[in-house]
């Protein structure tokens, strides 16, 4: 009837509104994803080489004494995990995937684990599960700002150096390309160098020579200047990677939401037209049968 058709029209209209919103979000995420990816790609060579320098320092024959950040600890007691998620949802399984992997990895960890949450969503999920949160960062400058992110890295470094924590892990979504993003958990401190073949841990492979470095100016100044900085830089790179992943995942999620909304709208429209046709047919039927009755009932004919 007319009232049910009105209801249907209203329904179609609201689905249309949703499609508009998701389409807009998709467009926004597309441009953000493009920017974040570009920034990530531009920064990657520097980050990789900086990391190599740190590795080269760590595997010096006197590696342990080069810098306390490169020093493995016997009998570690406390671990810290930096967990990178987003402030906003509507990004498919992006945040959940990170948290799921983090919980899986750290729930039965041999040592107590504290967390630093970067991103509101992850912070909420960890707090909800009553995890020990050392710090939570949200509403960070976007795209990631090196100075701001370095302060997060510095916090971890300080707490490592004062022996509050003996290990630091970095958990984030690594952006491989538009179609592949994966959650990784990487040990940031203390640094463990992996010698040998590829693919054991691609981050920690190094140049084959083991020669001892000379330093200019003197060793401590050089090492103190670069080791903490380059380790913080890894946090920055992780945030960039996570941002690129976030926007890409949201873009895809919004794309399929828009597609679903359109499909739904089409089937609703179809149903609406069918009902309308039926109503019209019924009305015509009423009229014509009424007319017939009148004719039949007219004795003058």
């Amino acid at each position: 009837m007319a009232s049910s058709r009105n209801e249907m029209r209203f329904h179609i209209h609201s689905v249309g509104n949703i499609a508009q919103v998701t389409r807009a979000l998709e467009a926004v995420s597309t441009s953000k994803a493009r920017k974040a990816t570009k920034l990530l790609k531009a920064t990657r060579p520097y980050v990789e080489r900086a990391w190599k320098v740190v590795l080269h320092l760590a595997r010096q024959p006197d590696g342990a004494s080069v810098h306390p950040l490169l020093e493995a600890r016997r009998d570690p007691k406390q671990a810290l995990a930096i967990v990178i998620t987003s402030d906003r949802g509507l990004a498919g399984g992006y945040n959940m995937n990170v948290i799921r992997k983090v919980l899986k990895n750290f729930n039965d960890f041999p040592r107590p684990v504290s967390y630093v949450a970067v991103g509101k969503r992850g912070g909420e999920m960890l707090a909800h599960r009553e995890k020990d949160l050392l710090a939570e960062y949200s509403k960070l400058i976007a795209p990631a700002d090196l100075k701001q992110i370095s302060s997060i890295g510095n916090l971890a470094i300080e707490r490592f150096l004062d022996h509050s924590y003996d290990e630091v892990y970095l958990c984030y979504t690594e952006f491989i390309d538009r179609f592949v993003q994966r959650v990784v958990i990487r040990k940031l401190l203390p640094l463990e160098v992996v010698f040998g073949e590829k693919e054991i841990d691609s981050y920690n492979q190094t140049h084959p020579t083991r020669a001892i470095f000379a330093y200019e100016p003197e060793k401590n100044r050089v090492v103190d200047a670069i080791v903490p900085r380059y380790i913080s830089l890894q946090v920055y790179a992780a945030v960039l990677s996570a941002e690129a992943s976030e926007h890409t995942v949201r873009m895809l999620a919004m794309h399929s939401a828009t597609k679903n909304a359109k499909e739904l709208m089409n089937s609703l429209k179809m149903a609406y037209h069918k009902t309308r046709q039926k109503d019209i047919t019924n009305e015509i039927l009423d009229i014509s049968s009424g007319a017939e009755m009148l004719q039949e009932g007219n004795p003058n004919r």
Partner: protein
Amino acid sequence: MTIHCEIVTQERIVFQGEADLVTLPGEAGEIGILPHHSPLLTVLKYGIIKVRLAEAEKVFTVFGGVAEIQPDQITILADAAESLNEIDAHETEEAKHRAERALKKKDRLTEDVEMEMWEALRRSNVRLEAVHRFRQSRD
């Protein structure tokens, strides 16, 4: 025998290629590096990097950073760097004058802005030095 040289900043790879001789502005003075140099880690100050291959010499400006030297490679992690060809001499002169004018009225500037101006001035000076010493005929 050449040495592989890379100049990388956070924004991009400025240079990547082979070299016979690379000259760097080390904190303690200029350092010349030939292939098979012993491993060295050095802090760089503001200055000029020269990369020579055969008879050709490429010139870059660098504004702080770190250089890691291995016998077969030099990795320069620059805080900022650019090739001589990318420097616009007129623009640099103007930037320099702007910074100098601003610094004359120092008391009006906030601390951040003042730092920024000093930075701009230092960079302009390095750029102009590079242009005057190494650029032929152009400009």
